[in-house]
């Protein structure tokens, strides 16, 4: 009988509780997460993002950086996509810090015309010569990667060379509620790395393989990451597409995507321990507020409760 890692973990946990055995709690290094107020998409965003990235003292000199925004729909006026100004600010920041190459790369899950989508979302008008700096991950050359100890039903994935070959993957996500996952932040944003030309539009294999589990498997495939979450205006309610704008006026960043996403949840008024993919990635005991070191604003000073659809009311933080 073949057990996935998750099934094995659950079976082990159940056996341990039945026999009243104590279990060892895995501890993780304390992740630094910066929270900075950013009230609007103004030119100040460029300085803010530069300061956030440089505060984390990333060694990017001479490195190849890939910025992965969240591009979903043809609409510059809604809050579905990561705002192009945030992505451009990150692009400029990494170049200023000495990166040899910075690429913007995305493989949208719904729309096949990625360049048309990026144009409609305002990327062409914000980033000079956008096409030269951009890779469509849906149609990039791919290589097969084995997933070691998968949580999901997947044992391997084809992934684009552009992200497999980079030195640092930067998930530049949007702060949104999600009708299947609770919240979509920097970790869920990695679904856009999976090539549509292999798996289709939408990338339905990931859903059938277990949504929270595949989010964590993808996260584990990319150990060198940085996360920036655009919460200047996020999306509440029936996200990630049909929700409504929610101004949280905040940017959140850090080297540890789990820490960043757990912090974003608290900013959104969501209990991160109720988000299954965060639990699977780190364990409930490692998701407490004290498990991470927040710099900049306190969570209390920026908490803005995002409206939740009825199916997700139970994830509201106290």
């Amino acid at each position: 009988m073949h057990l996935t890692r998750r099934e094995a973990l659950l079976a082990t946990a159940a056996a341990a509780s039945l026999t009243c055995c104590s279990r060892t709690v895995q501890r993780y290094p304390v992740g630094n997460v910066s929270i900075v107020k950013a009230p609007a998409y103004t030119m100040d965003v460029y300085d803010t993002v530069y300061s956030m990235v440089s505060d984390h003292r990333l060694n990017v000199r001479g490195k190849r950086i890939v910025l992965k925004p969240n591009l979903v729909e043809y609409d510059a006026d809604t809050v579905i996509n990561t705002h192009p100004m945030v992505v451009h600010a990150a692009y400029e920041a990494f170049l200023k810090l000495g990166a040899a190459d910075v690429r913007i790369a995305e493989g949208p899950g719904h729309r096949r015309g990625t360049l048309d989508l990026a144009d409609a979302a305002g990327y062409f008008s914000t980033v000079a010569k956008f096409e030269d700096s951009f890779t469509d991950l849906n149609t990039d050359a791919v290589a097969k990667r084995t997933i070691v100890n998968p949580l999901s039903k997947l044992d391997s994935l084809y992934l684009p060379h552009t992200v497999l070959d980079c030195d640092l993957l930067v998930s530049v996500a949007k702060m949104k509620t999600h009708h299947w996952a609770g919240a979509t932040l920097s970790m869920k944003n990695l679904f856009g790395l999976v090539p549509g030309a292999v798996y289709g539009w939408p990338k339905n294999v990931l859903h059938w393989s277990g949504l929270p589990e595949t989010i964590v498997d993808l996260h584990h495939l990319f150990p060198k990451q940085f996360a920036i979450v655009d919460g200047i205006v996020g999306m509440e309610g029936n996200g990630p597409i049909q929700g409504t704008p929610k101004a949280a006026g905040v940017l959140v960043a850090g080297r540890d995507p789990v820490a960043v996403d757990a912090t974003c949840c608290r900013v959104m008024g969501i209990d991160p321990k109720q988000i299954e993919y965060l639990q699977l990635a780190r364990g409930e005991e490692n998701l407490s507020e004290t498990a991470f070191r927040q710099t900049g604003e306190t969570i209390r000073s920026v908490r803005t409760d995002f409206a939740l659809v009825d199916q997700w009311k139970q994830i509201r933080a106290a």
Partner: protein
Amino acid sequence: MTNWKAIQNGDGGWAYSRGCSWTEPTAFALLARSADSPNTMTIPDRESFQRGVKFLSSIARPDGGWSPQPGVEESTWVTALAVLLPEGAVNEQQRRNAIGWLKTRSGRESGWRYRLQQRLVGNNDEFPQGWPWFPGAAAWVIPTSLGILAFEKALRRHDAASADLVERVESGRTFLLGHMCADGGWNHGSNRALGRDGDSYPETTGIALLALNGVASAQLERAKAMARKHLASCRTAEGIAWLRMGLSAHGESLAPAPDPVCRTNMDEALMTLARAQRNPLLA
């Protein structure tokens, strides 16, 4: 006219926009070339066409299906393109193998296990057989539309037992009609989520209409109305091309309009098919 030879990769295939060759843009480039100049191909054009054919011959897999790229060890939705390619571009055995592979594949939701699970929780819905993008996943609008077009082509050529194919075409069309959005068009297939209607897209509306060629009903009238509405506002080559092909397949005469900007090789190929007097996907 697109200079296909100039943008052909060294391995004989074509990229989606730039970079490595993939099955889908290569197949559509060959379809576009067959629509462009069926009788006036120059010798260099013929050589380029044959190099494209040779690239595709390396794509066929032992299970009869086709992979989306030589390095991908899995047969997927692109197998339908093997059946849709111009005559002579695929050898007869490969074509039959591809049909055989398509016959045995359908969306996971129409498999016995899923249907049994649904029955046990009181859901007695019918689950018509569409096609998935990737084995093991649910059926979606684009691969189902291509599967229907492929089987229709096979039926016109009498190169497979017809009863199975007719049944799958009918089932596929039932799938499409069941996944129509409230606005009359189609998106990828999620027409409702959490009790809310999803919006249709131009490209998926166009390809679904093309696959529903020959079907006439009040539901189709709504679909055509939505397609015309999309066409009036759509600015992408992909969307415009599929909408034009879909509406033309239902006898709609379209007013001449300037072509949109083509950003990718796929855009170029689709616009060529949309301009063709006789669409090779329906020939």
